[in-house]
């Protein structure tokens, strides 16, 4: 049975098809009917309509706006995903499926993409969705005056044109087999357009909910969209998203029934909350990971042996157990998580090895090393604790880590990509190419390890336009190996998303790509 559980996880991570699972389960003597029912999650009862869902989130600031170009926190992401949709979406099993698009075709070189839009979709204000809205929504992130975080992502687009009212043809500079993933990004939400400019201020979209009132940093109240086009989604009559920054206040609100769900459970007290009646703790393990990033253009980190010594000098198990209380998985010095399709599972797990650390240090011509490590809780919750633990682990190898506690305020502008070695958090990306070209390719704006590896960059380009699965897998595994052995990033762990739900709240298997069911809790959940 343990084997079957493992396979079940693979299915959920999208790495094993349902059909393969049923076949394999049969080998263990499980009938097809039982096997299929095993896949349906714990709460697979038919969804019911109605109720008012109140969600308390730890993010949200008075300075937020409804412009998806500047979305930067979970609050905006969840709100945006309730109001608007994308051309494509990642479903709860981690698979890419069409959303506002009905289907798409691609040229052989993966360069020209033709999206056919779904018919009869209306925005909350009654306007029908057409190709012009899609083009304007994507153009919102492009051009000289764009302040969008998705600008880089959409830069390869050379031309977009409408082919009739319901077809959009997008041409890219170079082939990219993963392009449909990019249009599923939460920034690239589709909004109604007028004269080529999108209206983001009103929050109008095609989503499961329309916006009632919104007070940034406080609350948003939403109403169900009666014309929502997705069958079997959008169950609550009303919803309220409340910003509750303080984790103790959030926990109290959940236990006293002021809210029905919360994100970011305090890991130190998660086991106590779990014991409380009427509350379920749900966690998903996706692509969110924490790193200690070294600048490969700055001594001593320009020497790969120094980097390897540091990678061997950290006790990942201990940090996972102490900082995350076990709510995560070990990292292997590359950013590709187990839920990614081409995760290099065959790569041996790097472990704590003082002798190897000493060996590499010696090879670099040093008997001991003194380095500064900048950390702050802004990088990730527990970063300073993790750094201090690391300091103790590294000491026996002759490595003296001086932990510099940086201010949370201004961390991303003053410390990250400025200091030679610092703690960083990455929400992760749904595809290998996206992650690597965001932070590892030599010309990436966020190449925070300032790492240039010719073979890696060559493979990245080749894999991007390769449409053959096996050839891609080989290339991505090689790239992960290169990053792990020669890269400038130390990845001690992948962190789970841990949420607290009232037991009234029901859901199917929960998406692992982002927190709160891939941001889509309001669309996907219901009251039992």
């Amino acid at each position, binding site marked *: 049975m343990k084997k079957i559980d493992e396979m079940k996880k693979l299915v959920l991570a999208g790495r094993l098809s349902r059909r393969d699972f049923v076949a394999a389960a049969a080998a263990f003597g499980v009938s097809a009917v039982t096997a299929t029912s095993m896949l349906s999650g714990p709460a697979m009862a038919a969804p019911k309509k109605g109720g008012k869902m109140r969600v308390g989130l730890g993010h949200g600031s008075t300075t937020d706006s409804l412009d998806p170009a500047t979305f930067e926190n979970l609050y905006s992401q969840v709100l945006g995903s309730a109001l608007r949709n994308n051309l494509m979406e990642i479903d709860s099993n981690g698979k890419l499926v069409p959303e506002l698009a009905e289907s798409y075709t691609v040229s052989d070189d993966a360069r020209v993409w033709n999206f056919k839009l779904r018919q009869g979709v209306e925005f909350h204000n009654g306007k029908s969705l057409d190709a012009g809205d899609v083009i304007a929504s994507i153009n919102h992130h492009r051009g000289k005056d764009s*302040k969008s975080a998705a600008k880089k992502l959409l830069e390869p687009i050379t031309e977009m044109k409408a082919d009739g009212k319901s077809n959009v043809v997008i041409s890219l500079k170079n082939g990219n087999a993963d392009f449909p993933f990019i249009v599923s990004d939460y920034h690239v939400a589709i909004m109604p357009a007028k004269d080529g400019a999108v209206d983001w201020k009103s929050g109008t979209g095609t989503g499961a909910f329309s916006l009632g009132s919104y007070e940034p940093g406080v609350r948003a109240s939403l109403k169900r969209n009666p014309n929502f086009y997705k069958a079997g989604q959008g169950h609550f009559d009303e919803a309220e998203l409340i910003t509750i920054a303080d984790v103790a206040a959030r926990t109290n609100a959940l236990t*006293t029934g*002021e809210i029905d769900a919360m994100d970011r459970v305090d890991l130190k007290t998660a086991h106590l909350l779990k014991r409380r009646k009427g509350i379920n703790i749900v966690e998903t393990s996706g692509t969110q990971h924490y790193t200690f990033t070294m600048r490969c253009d700055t001594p001593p980190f320009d020497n790969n042996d120094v980097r390897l010594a540091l990678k061997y000098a950290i006790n990942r198990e201990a940090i996972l157990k102490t900082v995350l209380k076990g709510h995560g998985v070990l990292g292997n010095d590359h950013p590709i998580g187990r839920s990614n399709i081409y995760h290099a599972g065959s790569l041996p797990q790097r472990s704590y090895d003082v002798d190897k650390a000493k060996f590499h240090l010696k090879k670099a011509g040093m008997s001991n090393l003194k380095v500064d490590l900048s950390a702050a809780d802004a990088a990730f919750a527990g970063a300073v604790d993790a750094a201090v633990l690391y300091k103790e682990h590294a000491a026996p190898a002759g490595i003296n880590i001086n932990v510099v506690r940086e201010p949370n305020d201004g961390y991303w502008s003053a410390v990250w990509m400025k200091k030679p070695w610092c703690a960083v958090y990455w929400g992760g990306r749904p595809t290998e190419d996206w992650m690597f070209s965001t932070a590892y390719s030599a010309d990436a704006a966020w190449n925070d390890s300032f790492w240039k590896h010719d073979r890696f960059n060559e493979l990245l380009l080749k894999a991007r336009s390769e449409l053959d699965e096996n050839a891609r897998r080989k290339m991505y595994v090689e790239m992960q190996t290169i990053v792990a052995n020669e890269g400038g990033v130390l990845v001690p762990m992948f962190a789970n998303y841990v949420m607290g739900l009232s037991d009234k709240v029901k859901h199917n298997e929960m998406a692992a790509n982002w927190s709160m069911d891939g941001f889509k809790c309001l669309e996907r959940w219901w009251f039992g």
Partner: protein
Amino acid sequence: MSDIGKMVAQRLGLGLLTLFVVSLIIFLGVELLPGDIAQEILGQAATEETVAAFRRELGLNLPPHERYIAWLVNLLQGDFGKSLANKREISELLDVRLWNTLFLAAVAAVISVPLALTLGILAALYRNSIFDRAVNIMTLSSISFPEFFVAYILILFLAVNLGVFPSISNISEELSFGERVYRCILPALTLTLVVVAHMMRMTRAAIINLLASPYIEMARLKGLKPGRIIVKHALPNALAPIINVVAINLAYLVVGVVIVEVVFVYPGLGQLLVDSVSKRDIPVVQACSLVFAMTYILLNLLADVLSILSNPRLLHPR
């Protein structure tokens, strides 16, 4: 009375000067912080190009003194400007938040001021008794704990265990007055516990100070009851210092409650200010600071006027 009018005018003039200096200091302070709003909002996702485009859009590429003068000119015409982050009118933003803050401060004041004065008078009346000591110990310990701790204790007992009050003050405009008060009770109680000690001790000390005066001795020799001596004879003369300490605490209830706001998720001015500082939204920071500064100036002025009315000698300092 014209003397008081003159003083009020003079103080208001000085107040305006203070506001100007405050706005200048705040502006310089936020400018000195590392990063600007473009970098803070884009955060980890910032690139040089997008930050530059953001700055152009907001006019942040102008030199600081030009931006300050433009802001000041607009303010003198009664325009607080717009939030840099989401283009909302600051006057609208302030309107709701200020009303929320004042509402909470008022509920807390309605509970705490009469409570503190009564306890202070009783403590003075029964000074050095068990009652006096108990009141002192209780109020001093509640002021000694950090605010968030007092708040958590109240939540634990009144919201989690007994379930009589909501643990978060989720208020919105459509709530009735009664419902609003109900939802504000826990934060108001927390604030009460924090401010009562100061006012109570001051009342007690001010009254006891007077009890050694010859005219109180005289009253006592006439055979008046201790209660009457304190309320009718001592209290009127002790009003000036009491009014001052009450004013300081009222100002605190308006400007110093950010921690209580966070713990109870109360949408007041404090939270607005903290969010705006962390994102470097200068016009909003300026507006909030001016409101806070104005609160202090006006409450202090009010306290002085009331003190003088209760004791006209204060108008002519020796």
